[in-house]
């Protein structure tokens, strides 16, 4: 067995060298072939060395270097990704990026969401909507840009008033503040919740207090509301205008998931609007 192991290791080293040589002269074809072999050999090696699970700790810690998936994840596995996202968005009450949704899921629903689970979500939802429109009580849909195209990387809930899903120039900031307030309101004793709120609070003037201790939710809410007041009027105006355009120009699907052919649609609808 050990000679087998040695032999394997020699082979693995050889293959690795081969791949890296190929890569240095950008010979991708060879590299790909060798890589395939290599993976095979490595799997063999793993099984020989004994009982190493093919898929270990599933998370590399993600962007911020969070610890790998926690045990609390287990019970929430029962709740589907879709539902977890819905929970999170409902708590936040505004369009949000996967990053934030995941953090909320963790902090308040003990969820074990991963950003990459959310990438395909919008497409799936759209497919199911096209199959049987309004067949579900809610859909996880897009927020719409000033060109009525789906805003990159934002998720929203279909049951929200249309304006809430519109993204004017100030909306990203407004939504962030709204989310901060929501998180502060819900703050529980889970350290992950506190960490999330701290992260958000330090980006709100008067909301943060350094990195120390759990932030004071009241203070965050006050600060966020304070800045919201500055932007609210103009943002509401922008969103309403957009919402009107969306209603008048987009069909059901597009209204939820964004105008497919973005720039073109946007431009001639604008000219239409001009008439």
């Amino acid at each position, binding site marked *: 067995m050990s000679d087998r192991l040695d032999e394997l290791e020699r082979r693995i080293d050889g293959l690795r060298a081969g791949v890296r040589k190929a890569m240095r002269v*950008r010979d991708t074809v060879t590299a790909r072939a060798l890589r395939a072999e290599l993976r095979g050999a490595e799997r063999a090696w793993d099984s020989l060395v004994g009982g190493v699970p093919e898929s270990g700790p599933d998370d590399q810690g993600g962007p*911020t270097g969070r610890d790998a998936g926690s045990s609390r994840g287990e019970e929430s596995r029962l709740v589907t990704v879709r539902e977890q996202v819905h929970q999170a968005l409902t708590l936040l009450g505004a369009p949000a*990026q996967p990053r934030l949704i995941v953090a909320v899921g963790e902090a308040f629903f003990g969820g074990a969401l991963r950003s990459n689970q959310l990438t395909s979500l919008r497409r799936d939802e759209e497919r199911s909507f096209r199959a049987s429109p309004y067949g579900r009580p809610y859909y996880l849909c897009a927020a719409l840009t000033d*060109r009525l195209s789906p805003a990159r990387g934002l998720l929203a809930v279909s049951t929200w008033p249309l304006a809430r899903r519109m993204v004017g120039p100030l909306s*990203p*900031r407004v939504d962030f503040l709204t*989310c901060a307030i929501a998180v502060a309101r819900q703050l529980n004793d889970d350290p992950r919740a506190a960490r999330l709120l701290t992260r958000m609070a330090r980006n709100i003037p008067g909301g943060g207090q350094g990195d120390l201790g759990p932030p004071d939710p009241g203070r965050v809410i006050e600060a966020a509301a304070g800045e919201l007041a500055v*932007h609210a009027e103009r943002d509401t105006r922008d969103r309403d205008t957009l919402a009107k355009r969306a209603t008048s120009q987009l069909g059901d699907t597009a209204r939820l998931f964004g105008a497919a052919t973005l720039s073109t649609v946007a431009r001639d609808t604008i000219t239409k609007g001009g008439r």
Partner: protein
Amino acid sequence: MNRLDVLRGTTPQKPHDARAIAALAANPGCTRRALMDGAGIDKDAAARHLGFPAPFGQSPFAITRGNVFEALVKADGCAELLRMLREVLGLPIAEVAYHDVENVGAHLRHAHTRALFDRAARDGLDAGTVYDHPLLSLEIAGHTAYLEPDVVAFQMGGRFHIVEIKSFAVIDGQADPAAVAAAARQAAVYVLALRRLLEELGHDPLRVAHDVVLVCPENFANRPVATLVDVRRQLAVLRRQLSRMTGLDGLVAELPDDLSFDLLPGEDGLPTRPAAELADALRRVTARYAPDCLSTCDLCFFCRDEARQEGASDLLGRQVRDELGGVASVAEALGLADGTRDPAEGQEEIARLLRNAERLRRECLA
């Protein structure tokens, strides 16, 4: 037809990005490099084809890290970025408007950028504050290079600031000086491009600040921190290099007509020109190799090999080369040192110094 284009032949032009433009200043004395850059030839591809692949590469970890950090800075409506801009530029609370220039199709981005900045420059009111993914352009040796700064920030005060997001850390206020310098040179390219843009639009180019906002992770955490970096020196250097590029025709004029750097790419885009032939072509224009090239030029190994074959003292570095006065070859220098070669006219002194040095070394090592 531009002689540089002739030099490039059927090889598709490699568009310059900000890094490439910034790199023009790395070794201006090198004719070989100047011509290849001027003609827009992919030096990296050439080097590989010649059998001297460049020693550069970026780790996937570094790349991921970079993307993750940029995403973090721009997340939640640029929450972090706004905090920092408020800190370093005193941005008023009201200024938060976010424009993602990429919302339009790629083909429209440059025009859209122009329109947005024109509006911002004309009536500061209701202009955006953070412009994400703008697309600028700059003329390099008769070709247009398209440039993508990370972010351009616009202030009620009416000034534009280039925001450069880098994932190297600022620790206790200090960062790797080489990394900062590279970032500054790159940012200077954006500043210049944006200034030219405003000029074309009939605005005061100086409304683009020469202080760029450098955003890096602070200490060992992921938390971004912003520092203002004054890039006036880099701008001066850049202007110099760009004007040299336009002056390339002078260099080109002296080249033999049959000289071509064409890689003759085949169907698959891979060079088909016999490597030896390409090598000969390159050797017909003089390079100015220095060890510094090893970190700045894709062709470095090719030129180093050439220097070795010539036994050139350049191999040992600019300083040594200078100490040897006019003596360019190793053999010559050593010959003068041990007296086996008589100094040529003008070499008397270096010969004396070298002989002296040789005498001392012998004495001490005896």
